[in-house]
Structures are given as structure tokens and as C-alpha cells.
């Protein structure tokens, strides 16, 4: 048994090797995840300024009861809920349509729909910001003009701002989500539909009783990424409003507020408290989701 050769030392033993393999992760985890998480929780109870850290109890959290943070919370939640509501059904239906037996040139359309995902959110944000400009010559105002509508100040009104943000989200992510559903659809056995055809089930019934349930794993995945993507939204708003200050905070999100308070105004303590609130929300959502999935599984 000369399998380890002369160089076999501690490191090379089969017992230790697995730990060496996972070591990069363990180190990254401890240094760049666990430590910051603990540190942010600790700092959220402190006043941090000029290198000094003083324990001040819950004061930072009390500061967060201000209307702007509440608004940022609402904005992020609203964005998350609506993106989930839009970005699941639409791509699912599009994928089913594209996957139809009668469709020609699937690959081409699939690729074209995917292109927006390739553009960086910065470029996309710049284009959308200018497309939805408030001057009467901007593309969207020209379209409104075709319908005899006056130009809109898109980016400074509470309602239209959301149209712009959702338009951007739909544009960038429909293709990707559709792709998830397309690959989900590939895994549904064809003969299920064939036997359904024989049984005389209509197109809608087939969708309702075969496609929808069998796409559930995909839906859960898409839902998960939409939830966390939506909650952590920042860059889109930063680009659309050309900086972190949207008029009347119409587009301020939790992360945007964290960035503003923690980094721009240098209140690390309050910023950390915002981080902790976000952490708690995320953990809660995770627990809810795990619980739901778990019970569903038992039910089936």
C-alpha cells in the first residue's frame, strides 16, 4: 500500500483532505459573513463615530420609527410583492406559449427575449431613465402624445415612478424567468399531454392540471429569487433617480436607506439597525417558505 507516496504528510492524509477542501469556504464564511453579521448586530445597539463605539441600547431602533424608513420598508415590500405577482405568471404563460407544438423559431425568440438580461442594470437604468424623461420629446411622452395625452413627469410622481421601475424589472427579467419555465417544461413528460388529449382535456385544463402542478419546483425557485431580489432592490432605483435621493423618497428602498444613513450620512449604528431589520425580514420569509414547502410536501 504505497498509495500516498513519500510526501504524504498531515495535509495529504485522506482524513484531513476534506477539511482542506472546504477550508476556503469556512474562512470566507467566518471572516466575510459570520463576523460581519455579528458585528452588524452589535453595532446596531451602538453609536459609532470617529473610531469610538458606545453602547446606547435601543436608541437606533427608535430612530428607525421615522416616516422615511417606514416608507422605505413599504416601498421595498410593495416592489417585492408586485414583482412576484408579475414575474411569475407572465413568464410562465409566455413559456407555455413558446413551448407550444405550433410555434416556429423557438430558439430565435428565446434568445431575443433573453438579451435584456445581458445588459448591465446600469445601462438599462440609463436607457429607462432617459426613455421616461419628463421632456415632451422623450420616447414615452411621444407615445402618450400619440394618444393625445399630455407629457408626464414620470420620475417625480409616486404612481408613475412605479410604472418605470416595474417596466424596467419586466424588461430585464421576463426572458430569464421564461427560461426557467422553459427548462421546467422540458422535464414534463410529453405522454402526459398525449394521454390528456386522448381523454379529451382542453388546452386550459391541461395547463391547469398538468403544467401548473408540475412546474411547482420552478415556481418555488423563481418565487424565492424574486422575493430576495425584490427586497434587496437598490441599483435600479439608484440609476433611475440618478443618485440615492428620489423626490419625496418615492423610490427609496430599504437598502437605499441603509446606504444613505450608513454610508452617505455616516451613521453606522443606525445603518446597522436597518441591516438587522432587513435580516429579520429575510429570515422570517425563509422560515415561512420552508414551513409552507414542508407542509405541502407532507400533504402530497
Amino acid at each position, binding site marked *: 500500500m504505497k498509495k500516498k507516496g513519500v510526501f504524504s504528510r498531515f495535509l495529504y492524509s485522506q482524513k484531513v483532505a476534506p477539511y482542506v477542501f472546504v477550508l476556503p469556504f469556512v474562512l470566507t464564511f467566518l471572516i466575510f459573513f459570520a463576523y460581519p453579521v455579528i458585528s452588524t448586530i452589535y453595532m446596531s445597539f451602538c*453609536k459609532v*463615530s*470617529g*473610531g469610538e463605539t458606545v453602547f446606547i441600547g435601543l436608541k437606533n431602533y427608535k*430612530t428607525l420609527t*421615522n*416616516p*422615511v424608513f417606514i416608507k422605505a420598508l413599504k416601498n421595498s415590500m410593495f416592489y417585492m410583492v408586485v414583482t412576484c405577482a408579475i414575474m411569475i405568471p407572465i413568464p410562465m404563460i409566455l413559456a407555455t406559449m413558446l413551448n407550444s407544438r405550433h410555434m416556429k423559431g423557438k430558439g430565435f425568440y428565446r434568445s431575443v427575449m433573453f438579451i435584456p438580461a445581458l445588459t448591465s442594470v446600469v445601462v438599462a437604468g440609463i436607457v429607462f431613465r432617459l426613455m421616461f*424623461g*419628463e*421632456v415632451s420629446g422623450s420616447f414615452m411622452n411621444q407615445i402618450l402624445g400619440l394618444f393625445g395625452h399630455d407629457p408626464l*413627469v414620470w420620475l*417625480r*410622481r*409616486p404612481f408613475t415612478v412605479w410604472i418605470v421601475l416595474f417596466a424596467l424589472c419586466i424588461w430585464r427579467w421576463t426572458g430569464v424567468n421564461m427560461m426557467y419555465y422553459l427548462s421546467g417544461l422540458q422535464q414534463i413528460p410529453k405522454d402526459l399531454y398525449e394521454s390528456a388529449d386522448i381523454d379529451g382535456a382542453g388546452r386550459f385544463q391541461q395547463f391547469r392540471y398538468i403544467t401548473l402542478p408540475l412546474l411547482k419546483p420552478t415556481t418555488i425557485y423563481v418565487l424565492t429569487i424574486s422575493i430576495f431580489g425584490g427586497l434587496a432592490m437598490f441599483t435600479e432605483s439608484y440609476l433611475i433617480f440618478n*443618485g*440615492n*435621493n*428620489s*423626490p*419625496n*423618497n418615492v423610490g427609496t428602498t430599504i437598502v437605499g436607506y441603509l446606504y*444613505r*444613513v450608513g*454610508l*452617505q*450620512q*455616516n*451613521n453606522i449604528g*443606525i445603518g446597522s439597525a436597518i441591516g438587522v431589520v432587513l435580516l429579520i425580514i429575510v429570515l422570517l420569509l425563509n422560515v415561512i417558505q420552508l414551513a409552507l414547502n414542508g407542509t405541502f410536501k407532507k400533504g402530497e
Partner: protein
Amino acid sequence: MKKRILSVLLCLVMTMSLMSACSKKSADTSSEGESSSGTEAGMTQGKNNHVDGGTDLSLWTFQELHVGFYTEMADVWNEKNPDKPINITVTTGESHSLHQKLLVACQAGEGTPDIADIEVGYYGSFMKDNYLLPINDVVEPYEDEVVMSRVEMYGDNEGNWYGADFHLGASVTYYNMDIMNEAGVDPASIVTWDDYVEAGKVVKEKTGKPMCAVESTDLFLPQLMMLEKKTQYVTDDGQPNIANDDHAEVIDYIRMMIDEGICEIAPGGFFHAEEWYGHLNDGGVASISMPLWYMGRFTDYCGDLEGKIGIYEIPVWNEGDTREVLQGGTGTSVLKFTEQEDLAKEFLAFCKLSEEGCTYEWEVLGFDPIRTSLWDDPAITENPDNKYLKYFTTNPFDILKKNGTDLTAPNISGAYSATYSVLVSTTYTNAFENATDQDAKELLETEQSTIIYEE
């Protein structure tokens, strides 16, 4: 073909990964060395003509135009002070991030430049944590020659001054004379805000154009009106104070102008947006009240208006009030971490307060000189080649001379930075666009409660 490119790429990755599996460390260090040498050749840095044996100074600014100013001033300095020459390196960057990075460097206590341009909206944060050095000793020699309210503005309650500005920043009203003539209104006859509103109604009726505009994401018009009432956004000891009666009156007054149709919300939301410049250049608005440093925006962005803009005094609340206040600005300061304290301070004062510096600032940058001796120098005030004097129909120095040097400057201490960020992000949007029906005082109280300020 595709496959082949890919496999070549993959082979590369493979071989590299094999190599680095054995010696990961060496791979890391070598690429690090590369990256740092690659970034040595900074592109947006400016330097003066190198002087052997000169002391190195570093300076950060957020405005590219200032690079030329500092490097040229350094050349002049070296000529005049051969015994203590300097070599200055000026670095520019985007405003928000540059200020933020400066704050970080200050907190860390390292990586700061010797001197930095700090915009008025950010100044409070630097002053409050004592990151700046007092410059009283180098300013005092110039004390009788400059408008001190502009210097004292960057100071604290103990009489320390920390910053020097590029300009006086006196506010004036720019009138589009084409529109005013069409309406038959002489701007010189406007003294009070009530006169201004009456004139505005005539302009609106005759030309259909609004008399003025207000920003929803910046604060120049309301701040001007507040300063005329000698009211500040922060109290003397630096606490936020936006929920006061004067402020509510100002908001109600502007709202009244909007309701009358003589005031519009600036396209783009503020007076530095490209949308606004387009609107202004197309003659979309009859007048705008801004500081004199805004002249440069006219010459740079509104070519069509050359020879059509008259500069007049700002309207005031009561006849007899001083028709000039100071607004905006950039306080250039010496950071306390510098190792060249004396030299940095002297050079700073020289740039900003000397005759040479102020002349450059006026001639090239279009900044109204902080130095009063220039106001009476015909070579300056009547210079036929000056592009600003050529552009405007009236002479800005007349206003400066008339109103003297006892001017109200904004109080930018304490909570000003935090207050400013709330004012420009929510307060004025709410007041003029979103919640126009809400009682002004009530609105201001809500806004005040969102200001996060810790001493």
C-alpha cells in the same frame, strides 16, 4: 469553430488552475503587483510644472474645472515663493462618492489628501468631527480685503475658520430681457417680492410664460427667501430648525406664486439638470434667482441667450432691505492629517484670497470675487474681453458695490448636512408637488422629524 474557441479557453483555465493549485500564493501576489502598477498612471490627476525639491501636496476636488485653477496657482506660487516651492497633485472624482470617500479616509485617519474641496452641503459633517484645521492665522492678513461673512460661514462658534471659498456667491436675479420687454416690464422697477409677483402676472398675461421656477430637489429659491428674513435651517447651536414660521411663510408664498401660474417646477427638478438648461435656453422662463456663480451655467449651457440676460438685484420682503445674500459654495479646507500643515494653509489662502487667485476665479471660472479690491478695478469690471461681461446686459459688479459686504450667509454648521439632505429629497417635493394642500407648518414639522442628527 465555436467549440474550438471554447475549448482553447477552457484549456487555458485548466492549465492555469493546475498551476495555481500547486502555488496559489505566487499567482495571487503576481497579479496584485500588476494591478497596482497599472493604476499608477492616473488620468484625471492634474499636476503643476514640476519643481525639483518642492514639497508634495495633494488635493481632492469634485469639479474638473478646479484642476486647472489649482495647478496654475501652484505655478504662480512657485514663482513668488522660490524658497518654499510645492508640487501639487489634484485628483478629481464624482461629487457624491468623493465626499463620501473623504469622510471614510478621515475616519480611518489615513489616506486623506492635504487639502480638499468640500461642498457646502457636506461641510457640516467634516466640521462636526473636527477633521479640519483652523486657518485663522493665514486668513488674517487678508481680513480687510475680503468679504468675511463668506469666510466666517465655514467656521464654528469659537471663532475658528476652517475653509475658504472660490467665490462670494452673491445671489442675484437673472431676467430674460426678451420676455421682459415683450411684457413691457422693467426689472429695475421690481423691488419687493410683491412687485415681483405683480410683474409676474403681467408677464404671464402678455407672454404666457412663467415669471420664475422653483426647484423640487434643491433649495435655492426658498433658502434665498429665508436668508432675506435672516432665518436659517439650523439653530445657532446647530440643531435642525426647519419647522419655523418664517419657513412656512416662504413655502406659502412660493405656493401662491405656483397657484397664480407665475412659478413653475423646474424641469428636471433642479437648476443644474440638462432638462432645465434646455428649457432656460429656449426662453421658457422669464427670470431665475441664483448666485452669481451661476453665470457660468448661462455661458456654458445657454448659448442662445447671449446678450439677452440682465442681472438685477434680488427682490426683498420690505423696501430698504439689503438686496443680496450669499448662497451655495465650496469650502476648501486643510485636513488635520496633513504633514505639511503650514504650507498647505498658506497655499490655500493664497489660492482663494490673493489678488492672483481671485482674478483667475473671476476671469476663467466666472466666480464673483470674494476680494473687494477687484470690484473697483476697471481692468476687471470693464474688461471688454471677459466672456461673462460680454454675455450679460448689465454689470454684476454694480450690485456687489451697491450692497456692500455685510451680507447674510447660510449657517452650515451642525445638522446642516443632514437637514439639507431631507430638504432636497423630500421637503420641497412635498411642499410644491405632492402635498400642495397640506398646511405648510404641519408639513415642516413632519419633515423635521425625519432628520437624523446626532451630535
